[in-house]
């Protein structure tokens, strides 16, 4: 509070220069380091008064948006390939009793290796997108092959609804990557059928392993003679938000995505809880053509921002 409330000289009294100087000294005293909202008019502060420089690379110093960073890949659609960092990257479905996520090491966009901190009361916002080049498309003629029942209805008994999962991790210390808060740990969950409860999937992106096309124009189910056809150019987006209410600062060294599959959605009998179950059973492995339980990923972008909650 720096309101200046000292009295004025009174008319008719003897005033020395020292008395007058003291009046100005009083102003100096209350305004030296004490100017606050009492001194400032309503709506007096404009954006030019704010120390809000453009920042990037998780450099702190802003007022509301504290830091931003993003990873991306320039250029157009990469050529086919299977070498990480050049063209598309293929990931095969993992097998075995439990999940085994693979670091999504495609190009330069899948890891954001810039350190930042989230103070108590601050918020992390992350958006990412993954370009998927290969989604199995099942034609009507194949459905009877794939699904022995031949009903042309994809049911649960003969085939699950398989999907791939891409989820977000952060690096809490050099080389130590953990799931972000609100995201279950698929890696260390119980092996076999039971994965983590889907209530802990705040940073999970689902990508269908296949899709069935219907050509309403011909009033038929899509009847491609090929066992499956690659579907191109699917872009999947997902976002994640986290507010640090731990009471202490969280230091993060980087963000990255991991991918794993195949999963399918399941609830235990008698339970009202859904799970993502790791099981390497794709549609096409049950008949017709060769097994093709892979996913091909193209460009990956991650954008993150730390900002004040209030």
């Amino acid at each position, binding site marked *: 509070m720096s*309101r*200046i409330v000292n009295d004025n*000289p009174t*008319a008719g009294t003897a005033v020395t220069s020292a008395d007058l100087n003291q009046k100005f000294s009083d*102003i100096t005293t209350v*305004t030296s380091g004490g*100017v606050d909202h009492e*001194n*400032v*008019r309503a709506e007096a*502060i404009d954006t*030019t*008064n*704010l*120390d809000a*420089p453009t920042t990037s690379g998780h450099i702190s110093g802003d*007022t*509301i948006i504290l830091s931003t960073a993003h990873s991306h890949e320039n250029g157009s659609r990469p050529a086919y390939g299977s070498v990480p960092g050049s063209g598309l990257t293929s990931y095969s479905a993992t097998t075995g009793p439990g999940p085994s996520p693979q670091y999504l090491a495609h190009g330069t966009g899948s890891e954001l290796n810039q350190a930042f901190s989230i103070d108590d009361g601050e*918020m992390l*916002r992350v*958006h990412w997108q993954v370009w998927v080049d290969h989604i199995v498309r099942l034609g009507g003629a194949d459905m009877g092959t794939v699904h022995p029942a*031949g*009903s*042309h*209805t994809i049911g649960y*008994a003969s085939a*699950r*609804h398989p*999907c791939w999962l891409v989820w977000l991790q952060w690096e809490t210390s050099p080389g130590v990557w953990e799931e972000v808060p*609100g995201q279950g740990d698929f890696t260390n969950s119980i092996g076999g059928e039971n994965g983590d409860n889907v209530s802990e*999937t*705040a*940073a*999970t*992106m*689902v990508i*269908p392993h296949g*899709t*069935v096309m*219907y050509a*309403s124009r011909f009033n*038929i*189910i899509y009847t491609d003679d090929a066992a499956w056809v690659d579907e191109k150019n699917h872009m*999947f987006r*997902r*976002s994640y*938000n986290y*507010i640090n209410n731990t009471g202490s600062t969280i230091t993060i060294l980087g963000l990255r995505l991991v991918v794993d599959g195949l999963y399918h*959605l*399941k*609830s235990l*009998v*008698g*339970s*009202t*809880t*859904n799970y993502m179950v790791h099981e390497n059973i794709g549609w096409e492995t049950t008949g017709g053509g060769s097994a093709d339980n892979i996913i091909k990923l193209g460009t990956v972008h991650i954008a993150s921002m730390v*900002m*004040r909650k*209030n």
Partner: protein
Amino acid sequence: MSKRWTVFDPGSKNIVDVDGFNDEYNTQKGALNGGVDRNNLPGEYITRAQIKQGAFHKTHLFTGLLLSDESIKLNNGGNLQPDGLDYSLYNGGWRRAFDPVQVSGLRDGMNHIEFNCWQWQYRFTSGFSLEPGGVLATQENHDHWVKWRILYNGMIVLETGAMYTQYDNVTLSADFPMMGGDASIEVQFAFAPPAYNDGDPVDVVDSPMFTFAGGQILLLSRFR
């Protein structure tokens, strides 16, 4: 405009009059006692430490949102099925995705709202068949879809088109002006109603059809 606080300067030969001094002094005090504005403050001067909590904006985050409405949700008995919306309990129309979330203490300004989740739908359950005597597939009996919308104090601020993919990720955002006060935010979905063919149901009525999880609502209120 507060920087013109000087009323006059005493002449060098004049006898200083206390009333003149007080005029000058009062004006200076008045300028500083609540009259400072952007012309007095230097550019890029106000840092984060000088901004009070909630001065410019307020953020609310609701997380862990998923389908839990037992009035439309099947508790299945199948080994490979998830729990989800059930046609024996749901016949179409907009439904609450979860209980509305409440926020308070907002002031006039603009809202930025985001809702995200992932979803699954049983797209292929319709009873069409290419077998002799089977029901032909039509758009009505085959295409299942999900739509989403967000209501702010009962007003629709966002509504999507139909989403058809059996697994998909929902990332919605809307910006709109707001009045000060409290607010209720409701997220609703609509799923394709069960299909009929000549009066006969062609959809499986006792299978889970749709569910979602991993949901978050982010409300970023920017004050005027």
